[in-house]
């Protein structure tokens, strides 16, 4: 037995000499490998958040649109991949142009080196994948404003412009060395870049599309259009919550000294506080402990802590989450009151909480953590200075105004040229049938009469 093993090992050593003669890897290589692995894991987690968006959007809308909602999320992620590879990445992170403060230029049809370049802490491939997954999240947030009434073709057009230009420009300003980065704007994992951008695109869409049939009565009062599966919606929040650890903790893009753990820790606290606050406030105000509000609050806590997770102390993470939970509740009521139909609550969850999270840095960031991350400075409470708060405010207003204007332009032109909304008949029949020819739940829904077919 032992003899056989010795022979086998000797043979293997002859066949694979490297095993016998390999040098120990250097510390830098190990470090690079670990970082790469971490960013890769984070990419997978963030990509999986698309599963969360499928369940969130499908669960919050009606059965007749479920197949469409789910399928289009996968399709637009596929299209976004191509667009980001061809154009978007080059605008967000392509360096070296004379206009670098405003826009990146280079690395179009991105052709990365096959391994990490000497001195890099990870290969550009994993960075690309990670950034792509962020762009896809922002895009899926925008779909909240399209839900249940936009033509499939409008999804294609908007994906091209949003992932090709609009999102990458904001990402460049804040993360790609653009002018807001120069000013020291703190947005660790994208309360503004990802969430607010997506939410404002959703806002532009929902304003141009107008409310769904039956959402508002003639006298201005709102009707509740209930989602078809609250279990899906709850599961979606869990999936997103888990994915968020890739989103936030992964944004350290390094294993380093284990700081990613601190980021994850704050993320967890923010989410918990958001969920608790939203349930309690809905209970207190409406007399009912509303599940939808609680789920929105959990997500709002996550959105809000996204900008600040690396810059604040744990108590502040809790305060940020609590406030986000309350804010999202009143925000939902507010949008309903001004008769803006927000089927997935994207405007409140990602927009309002995104704004709050970004501003919260200006209040709660500590000098110590700002130095550690190397972006901006401490906020109002720690330093007594309003400088960071002003920078945060500036980044929200400028990035927000840009996304809003660009989205209105793209969607407005599209509406004028090719139309944006399906016909009333199609909307009533459901997009599953009108856009794809088959229901997501064929056994639960009957095909309508011929008279109703569009």
């Amino acid at each position, binding site marked *: 037995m032992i003899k056989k093993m010795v022979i086998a090992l000797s043979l293997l050593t002859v066949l694979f000499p490297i095993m016998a003669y390999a040098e120990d890897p250097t510390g830098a290589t190990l470090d690079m490998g670990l970082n790469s692995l971490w960013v890769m894991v984070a990419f997978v987690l963030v990509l999986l958040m698309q599963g969360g968006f499928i369940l969130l959007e499908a669960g919050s809308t009606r059965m007749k649109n479920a197949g469409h909602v789910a399928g289009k999320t996968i399709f637009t992620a596929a299209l976004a991949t191509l667009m980001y590879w061809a154009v978007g990445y080059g605008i967000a992170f392509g360096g070296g142009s004379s206009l670098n403060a405003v826009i990146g230029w280079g690395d179009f049809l991105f052709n990365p080196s096959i391994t990490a370049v000497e001195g890099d802490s990870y290969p550009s491939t994993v960075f690309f994948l990670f950034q792509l997954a962020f762009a896809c999240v922002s895009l899926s947030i925008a779909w909240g404003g399209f839900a249940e009434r936009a033509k499939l073709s409008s999804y294609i057009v908007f994906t091209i412009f949003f992932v090709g230009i609009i999102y990458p420009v904001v990402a460049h300003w804040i993360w790609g060395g653009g002018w807001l980065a120069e000013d020291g704007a703190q947005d660790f994992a994208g309360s503004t870049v990802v969430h607010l951008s997506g939410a404002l695109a959703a806002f532009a869409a929902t304003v141009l599309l107008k409310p769904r049939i039956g959402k508002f009565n003639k006298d201005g009062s*709102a009707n509740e259009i209930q989602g078809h599966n609250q279990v899906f919606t709850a599961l979606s929040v869990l999936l997103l919550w888990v994915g968020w650890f890739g989103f936030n903790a992964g944004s350290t893009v390094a294993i380093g000294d284990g700081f990613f753990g601190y980021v994850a820790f704050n993320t967890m606290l923010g989410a918990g506080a958001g969920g608790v606050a939203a349930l309690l406030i809905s209970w*207190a*105000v409406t007399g009912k402990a509303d599940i939808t509000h609680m789920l929105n609050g959990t997500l709002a806590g996550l959105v809000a802590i996204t900008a600040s997770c690396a810059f604040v102390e744990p108590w502040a993470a809790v305060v940020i989450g609590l406030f986000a939970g309350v804010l999202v509740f009143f925000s939902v009521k507010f949008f309903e009151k001004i008769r803006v139909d927000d089927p997935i609550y994207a405007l409140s969850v990602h927009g309002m909480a995104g704004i709050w999270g970004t501003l919260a840095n200006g209040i709660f960031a500590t000098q110590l953590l700002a130095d550690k991350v190397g972006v901006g400075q401490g906020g109002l409470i720690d330093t007594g200075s309003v400088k960071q708060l002003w920078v945060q405010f500036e980044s929200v207003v400028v990035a927000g105004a840009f996304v809003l204007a660009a989205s209105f332009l793209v969607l407005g032109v599209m509406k004028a040229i090719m139309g944006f909304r399906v016909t009333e008949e199609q909307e009533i029949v459901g997009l599953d049938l009108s856009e794809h020819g088959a229901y997501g739940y064929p056994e639960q829904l009957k095909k309508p009469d011929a008279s109703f077919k569009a």
Partner: protein
Amino acid sequence: MEDRWLAKMLNLIRLAGKPAELHSLRNEAQQYLKSHVQSLPIDQCYEQLNEVHDAVICRAITLAEAEMARLGMGAPPVPYAYLLFGSGGREEQTMSSDQDSGIVFSDGEGASSTRQYFSLLSERIVRNLLESGYPPCDGNVISSNAEWCLSIEEWKNRLEGWFNEPVWENVRYLLILADGRCVHGDQMLANELKSYFYKYVLNHSDIEKRMLENTIRHKILVGVFGQLLREPYGSEAGSLDIKYGAYIPMVNAIRLLSIQAGIPATSTLERLSELIKQGYLNDSDGNQYYAAFSQFLSLRLLTTSQLEHGWHTSNGKLAADKLDKAAISKLKGHLKAGKKLQQYVYKHTLSRLSQGGG
């Protein structure tokens, strides 16, 4: 002046020859009372309205009896009492109330023919009342349902069954029975049934506990910040569910306290006065509850009503524009009082039960 008009109407009702006539007289009387709601104190308003209802119902019954006689079934073979439950029992019917009713008759010889007679009679009464504009009870608590048309001995057996098996449905029936009131016929029979109920209910602490749970299950529609909890969505958005968010919770609470005190009155305001008089509620709390319930009673007359299958029905909801600022602030205070009453009933009942060793 008003009284004279009402007396004239009541007389006409008592002489009406057929249900259609009753219907139009009832509508006329309601129209008149509606226009006088503002000028009358609310308890008088309900009193007059329920006098009209009682008169219509009694006439519908005597018309049915006459019809039975005409068909050769003769007069009622034994004494009986026609009972009203629900708002009718509490003398709190609105302009649009449905039929909740039952019959109790004496035990006598010829049980099966007696049953036959009352079964046919109750059918005719219910039909006459339908034609006079009273929709049937959703829960089928109605005299034409054999379960609610029994001899006094059968009633007692049935009650015993309910007492021995306190599932939610039986507890609901017992609470319905507590509001029972004889509107026509032999008052003694009704009294016998009610005193049987009172005698046993207080000896069953498990029943009392279940009654408590049933009694406080409707939440009063005022939030922790003292705000009104309005309908959030739909065509009724902004309106307030006065029936189930204010009126019924108080009716329930006062009923349970009255059952515990052995007070036989069925009208909520009368029950309240008795509870105060007998010292079960102190004067200041009691008067607060009295004022609160009076406002709920008047708001209840303003709730949205519609015509459904030719019957006036109300969804019990008060539209937002029916309340001005002063009324809202008064209402908030009264809803808080209602909440306080619910808490009092809860604590009071639990301490009673723990003292009783139950």
